[in-house]
Structure formats: structure tokens, C-alpha cells
């Protein structure tokens, strides 16, 4: 199997004069759970649709496991695009039967596969109910079951937890994590829910205005920010603390943070410990000296500002 599950090169798609996706380059390695992040309207869904061949791209190339994307390469791909749609007058099982036929599974193999995926998403009990009676969470699980038919090696999930309640979100999140871990499925998950992506993904790409603005492992993206070494400092005597900090030329005073504490960025070789010693020597009683932890949300806001 190719090391690269999905490779997108120079993908561009415009609607009229507006470019929804501009020269997008993306690489998802086999085994990755890749978070495709971006604000609403950034071009995530358009990019996903182009990757899947639902809409045409103006230019660019998409390769799936080293092969140029065609209808054949969809054999290795399962996908959910936006809100999944079902034939609501048919049962969950009938919807899956239809999808199994479309996936090219023989009736016998299809039956086995359907039993397997229903079990996997925990819908076996309700499979003979009409899809129209399913809750949003059940529809989402049924969509995942449908995407898993034929044992795809790559799953493309567009906003898979959209509209779900916290319990439903957690269930879907756990399921995706388990698919990656136990079923060895490479996953590309598009979302604007940063906590969700940080919880599941090992690699992240951030897209804005149709262009990839940042890409890397979650650790890389967070470390890059951490390198700036921002601390929150507080004391009983705020005036004395501020005066002392203003007198130091190897740090920047950034002002008060959301917590009301002063924020400083360390420069050069200055460390948190050295700063603590200096302030103690200056007779300032510290009540807090806390390294500012950065979340993916901070990185996202930084990149997309």
C-alpha cells in the first residue's frame, strides 16, 4: 500500500469570480487521522467534494493511494459529505442494501458486510426501522455504517458531528478514534470544532479562503506557539510587579490577559525559573507564575486572523 493515502496538488475550484479553493496542496499519510480545519466558508466542503469527484475542479490533481482519482479509486474510500441523506421511506437495512449494491458487493458478501457495519456502529437493533424515524445521531451512525461498507482504507468525513448533541458527538468521536486505532483506517475529518479535532487527530491542516495556511502534527503546531514562551504572572502588589517587569529588557510585557493576570513573553535565554528568582530578589511576592497553555483554537485563531 502507498504511504500516501491522499495527495491533493494544486486543486482549484471557482464559482463565478469567487475562488472557493485555490491551489490547495494536501497530503494525508496512511494511518493519519487528519483534521481539515477552517472557518465556515473557508472551502473545506468544496475541497472535499472536488476530492470525491462530486463536483469538478478547475485544475489540480487528486491521487488516492498513489492512483489518479477515478470512480475505481472510490473502492478504497468511504465518505460522508455534509448532512448524510437517506431514502427516508426505506429502512436502515434497505438503505445499506442499496449502498452495498452500489459498492459492488455481491448479495451474500453485502449481507455479511451490512451485519458487520451495523454491529460496528451499534445500530443492529434498529436496522429494520425506517430511516426517516431515526434521530440525527442515529442517521450519522447509519451514514458511518454506509461509508464503512466494502472496508474502505480511507474515510473522508465532512463535519461528522454537525448538529449532534454532546452525547452524540462523543459517540461519533469515539467511533472515529476506534476506526483509526482498531480498523487501521486513515481518516480525513473536516471540522470547525477545534476541540474535537484536537481530541482525535494527529495531523492538522488549516484552510482559509481556499488556501492551506498551516499544516503539521498537532504537537508541531502547538509547539510553534509554545516556543514564544508566554507566561501569566500575578502578585499581591500588582503595581510593584508591573514596575519590576517593565524594568527588564529581556521580556515583553503584553498587558493583562483574560484572567486579569499580566502576560509576559520571555526573550533570549530567560527562563521562567530565572524570572521567578529575579522577582523574589526584588521582594515581590508572586501568587502565580503560569506558562500559558496554547490550544489548537489559539493556533487556529492566530493562523486565520
Amino acid at each position, binding site marked *: 500500500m502507498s504511504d500516501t493515502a491522499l495527495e491533493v496538488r494544486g486543486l482549484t475550484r471557482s464559482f463565478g469570480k469567487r475562488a472557493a479553493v485555490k491551489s490547495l496542496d494536501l497530503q494525508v499519510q496512511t494511518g493519519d487521522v487528519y483534521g481539515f480545519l477552517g472557518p465556515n466558508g473557508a472551502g473545506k466542503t468544496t475541497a472535499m467534494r472536488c476530492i470525491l469527484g*462530486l463536483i469538478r475542479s478547475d485544475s489540480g490533481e487528486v491521487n488516492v493511494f498513489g492512483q489518479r482519482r477515478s470512480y475505481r*479509486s472510490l473502492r478504497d474510500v468511504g465518505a460522508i459529505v455534509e448532512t448524510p*441523506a437517506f431514502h427516508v421511506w*426505506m429502512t436502515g437495512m434497505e438503505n445499506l442494501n*442499496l449502498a452495498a*449494491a452500489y459498492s459492488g458487493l455481491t448479495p451474500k458478501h453485502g449481507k455479511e458486510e451490512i451485519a458487520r457495519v451495523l454491529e460496528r456502529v451499534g445500530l443492529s437493533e434498529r436496522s429494520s426501522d425506517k430511516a426517516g424515524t431515526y434521530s440525527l445521531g442515529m442517521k450519522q451512525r447509519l451514514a458511518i455504517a454506509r461509508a464503512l461498507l466494502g472496508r474502505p482504507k480511507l474515510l473522508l468525513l465532512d463535519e461528522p458531528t454537525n448538529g449532534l448533541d454532546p452525547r452524540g458527538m462523543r459517540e461519533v468521536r469515539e467511533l472515529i478514534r476506534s476506526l483509526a486505532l482498531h480498523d487501521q483506517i486513515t481518516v480525513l475529518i473536516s471540522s470547525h470544532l477545534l476541540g474535537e479535532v484536537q481530541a482525535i487527530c494527529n495531523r492538522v491542516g488549516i484552510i482559509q479562503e481556499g488556501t492551506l495556511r498551516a499544516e503539521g502534527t498537532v504537537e508541531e503546531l502547538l509547539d510553534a506557539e509554545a516556543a514564544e514562551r508566554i507566561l501569566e504572572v500575578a502578585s499581591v502588589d500588582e503595581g510593584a510587579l508591573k514596575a519590576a517587569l517593565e524594568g527588564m529588557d529581556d521580556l515583553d510585557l503584553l498587558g493583562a490577559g483574560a484572567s486579569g493576570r499580566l502576560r509576559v513573553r520571555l526573550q533570549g535565554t530567560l527562563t521562567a525559573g530565572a524570572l521567578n528568582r529575579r522577582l523574589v530578589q526584588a521582594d515581590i511576592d508572586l501568587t502565580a507564575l503560569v506558562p500559558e497553555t496554547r490550544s489548537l483554537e489559539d493556533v487556529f485563531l492566530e493562523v486565520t486572523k
Partner: protein
Amino acid sequence: MSLPTHVLALWRAETIKLLSRTSARLGLIGAIAISLLIPLILFWLSNTGMEMNGTEVKDALGADAPMALNWSLRFLHWAFILRAFIILLGTMTIAGEFSAKTLREDLLRPVPRAAILAAKWAALSTWIGLFLGITWLISSVLGLILFGTDGGWQDPALAYLVAGLCNVGFAALVLAIAVCIRSVPVTIVGVFLFLVMNTFLGWGLTVVSWISEMADVPEAVEFVIQARPWLPSSALGAWYGFAVGEPWIWQNFAALGLLTALSALVAAAVFEWIDVP
């Protein structure tokens, strides 16, 4: 699974899906009702003492089982029942699924778009076959019970067969319009407009041909009159000659073949090219 086998599997799956639609089932119930009602009406007419222009209706009719078959076929066309269901189901199959986003789910599978379209057309054609088959079977059995075995059975059988081909061609036309328009109400209006315009064109040419029999008309008009058997309305009504015992017109069949092939090609080309978001 090879592509032809895959397409056959899709045909089966699409047929099951189509037959699970309430509208498709209603259509088949309509076929049962018509095929029961028409022979009974014919039986009643042929056993009533009613007179028309001094002749008893039963003598004028000379009813037999094949006539019951023909009447059923002609009624479901004149009353626009079969065509209405083909328009509805054909539109739902493409434009309806486009709007409901279920068409997108089909395209996420490893199948060429043309094969998806072919499977949907084949499913609709199967439904048409079922509709006509039910009408033929029930009308035949009831006709045999009511009238016995007398009469010529070959022409009605051919009429049903050709009606099947004509309606499969009509289904291709509906799918082509649905693929191009992709909106349920606009597709329905579009198909009706096409049929109405086509009918008016046919009537216009008939009137012109009457005039040409009474007076000299320019050669160009004569040429246009000759085009009548090639009109879509003539093509889609190619079955009618068999139902009334007239010689069949080869131009109707050629036009039906052209209409079907052109509709299928346009549908496939546009379907290959459109965005299905």
C-alpha cells in the same frame, strides 16, 4: 465484480428501491384497476340493450377479449395515466434525488456515472414493463372469462410490446429533461410543455395536410407535412397502429429509436458533467 455484473446488480437494487416508492405502487394499483374496469365496462356495454343510431351497441361493438385488451391499453394512454406516472417517477428518480441529496450518496460509490443513470433507466423501464404486463395479464384473464377465446390476439400483444418500447423511450426523454433541469416542479412542467407543444405541432401539421389535399401548397410545406411520422408524438404513439389494426409506419419506429438514443446520450453527457453537491 465486473462492470456489466455491477450494472445488473444496480438495476436490481434500483428496481427494488423504485418499487418501494408509494407512487410506484399506486401506479401499479392503477394498472390493476384499469385492467379490471375496462373489460367490465366493455362487457356491460355488450350486454346492454342500448341502441345508438338505430343499432344495438353490442352489435356495433362486436366485443371480444382482445378488444378488452386494446381498450385497456388505449384508455391508460388517453387518460394519460401511464405517462403521468412515468413523468412523476422519472422526475423523482433524478431531480428528486438530486434535491434530496441521495443522488450524491450514489456518486460516492465506485461506479461510473453513466452506469448509475443506466440502472435508473432500466429500473423505470422495468416498472413500465410491470405496469403493462399487469394490464395485459388481468385484462386477458378477465376478457377470457367474460368473452371467451374468440378474436385475434396477435395485434393486441404487439400493441402492448410496442407500447412498452414507446414508454421506455418516453422514460429516457423524461430522464434527460430531469438531468438537464434537476428541479422536480420545473422538470414536470418542462415535460408537459414538451408534450403539449409536440401535440400542437402534430395537430398543426394535420390541418396543413388537410389543406394540402384541398388546395395547392408550396413544396416546402409538402416537405414539412412529410415530417409528421418523425415527430416525437408519432414516435411515442407507434403502438397505436397495432391497437386499431392499421399497418405500422416504419418512420415512427425510426423516430422512436432516434428519440431514445438522443435522450440517452444527452442524459449521459450532461450527467457526466454536472456538479452534484
